[in-house]
């Protein structure tokens, strides 16, 4: 009796929300629930004791009805503890919920077997991992929004790990399991592969951080510029790996390229105005002064008019060329709307 009391108290005071279900022909009846579980459901033990689990919680809005109703299939099948992974639930966990307060729980089902090895009870534990999941989601979202991610090469085991941000850049699914060989297909050439591993080796030898700009091809065939910043990991002087961040800088480089083109255009315009436009213009001005002087002296040479005409036509041609080069066919200056 004393022993039963002790176990009951122990179960009741467990912080991790837990419920004990009896496996019956009709389903899963609640036998007991600890304070944490009752708080989670915002129900009392009297409200749930002896009730069928699925009648208390007919649906989980965040998983399919089939998955929800078959929640216990795996433990019944395997007869060992099963980790269902992280599931999204609402708070309070009862049929009067507003569905607004979402929480994440890692769920374990532990079977209690009878002497014949049949399951008579299932203990359902829910560990609140909401904070961890939210932080992970924020981390993943931030990696996506700024197009960066993390990578880690384990030199001891010759393995490579990529964060969801890097997988996103490489346009591979989250389920993609990279290895040193398979990741080589993302490099544009053998030379790029060599250059990356040379940088890694140098960083390991020099025990320094390294930066490398790589041209890669994603799984969907898109070309990207990747800036890799890494540093070797040492344990008691022995390098156990290299880890770092990868950032997709394609847009930044494209923008810089555009700015450089515009800068070149402006340089061309400055040159054109200073040399090409002013050359015939200065000649016209000089000719006009000369013509005026000759007119006053009454001795105008007819070829001066030809020179004036030639200079005016040259000026017109130069202006046309500048227009063509900057906003015309060659379009050195491209409107942002384009």
């Amino acid at each position, binding site marked *: 009796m004393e022993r039963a009391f002790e176990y009951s108290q122990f179960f009741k005071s467990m912080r991790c929300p837990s419920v004990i279900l009896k496996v019956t022909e009709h389903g899963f009846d609640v036998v007991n629930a600890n304070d944490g579980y009752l708080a989670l459901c915002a129900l009392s033990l009297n409200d749930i004791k002896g009730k069928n689990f699925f009648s208390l919680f007919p649906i989980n809005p965040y998983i399919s009805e089939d998955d929800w109703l078959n929640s216990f299939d795996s433990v019944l099948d395997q007869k060992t503890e099963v980790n269902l992974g992280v599931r999204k639930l609402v708070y309070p966990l009862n049929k009067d919920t507003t569905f607004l307060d979402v929480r994440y729980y890692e769920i374990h089902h532990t079977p209690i077997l009878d002497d014949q090895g049949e399951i008579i009870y299932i203990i359902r534990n829910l560990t609140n991992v909401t904070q961890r999941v939210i932080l992970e989601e924020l981390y993943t979202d931030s990696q996506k929004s700024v197009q960066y991610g993390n990578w880690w090469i384990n030199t001891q085991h010759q393995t490579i790990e990529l964060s969801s941000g890097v997988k996103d850049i490489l346009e591979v699914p989250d389920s993609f399991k990279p290895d040193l060989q398979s990741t080589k297909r993302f490099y544009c050439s053998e030379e790029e592969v060599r250059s990356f591993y040379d940088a890694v080796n140098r960083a390991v030898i020099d025990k320094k951080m390294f930066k490398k700009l790589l041209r890669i091809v994603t799984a969907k065939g898109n070309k990207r510029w990747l800036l890799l910043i890494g540093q070797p990991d040492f344990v008691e002087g022995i390098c156990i790996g290299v880890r770092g961040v990868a950032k997709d800088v394609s847009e930044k480089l494209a923008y810089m390229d555009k700015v450089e083109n515009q800068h070149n255009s402006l340089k061309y315009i*400055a040159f054109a105005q*200073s*040399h090409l436009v*002013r*050359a015939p*213009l*200065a*000649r016209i*001005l*000089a*000719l006009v*002064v*000369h013509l005026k002087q000759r007119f006053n002296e009454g001795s105008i040479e007819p070829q001066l008019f030809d*020179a004036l005409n*030639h*200079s005016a036509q040259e000026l017109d041609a130069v202006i046309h060329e500048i227009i063509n080069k900057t906003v015309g066919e060659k379009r050195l200056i491209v409107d942002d709307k384009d």
Partner: protein
Amino acid sequence: MKLNTAIVDDDKIFHFLMAIMLKEAQISSKPVCLQEGGQFLQWWRTQKNTSENSLLFLDLNMPFVDGWQVLDELKNENAKNIFVVIITSSIDPKDRKRAESYPMVIDFMVKPIHLPDLLKIKHSTSLTPYFL
């Protein structure tokens, strides 16, 4: 003292007008007219070993060998007996600043060139001894 005068510019009309003004300014009655830097450097190599000095009116923007290349060549050869007046249509202050860094450049003139500009040159400290 004799001063040989050369005009290096790819613009023949400028040659024509400049020759008239140089004559009017009594700087040179028959300047040598050359159309790009390469021609000038050839001419210069025949002149540099003589005791005569040269006054060069040099354009900057020319095909083949431009004015900057000519200045570099003169600087490399440590040319002493030549006075260079830049004559350009460029109003870019950077060009003026760059030109002034060459020791043989005595003036930087922006086209169109007028007679008073040439008279000013003629009476500059460097050239006065040649027009006494």
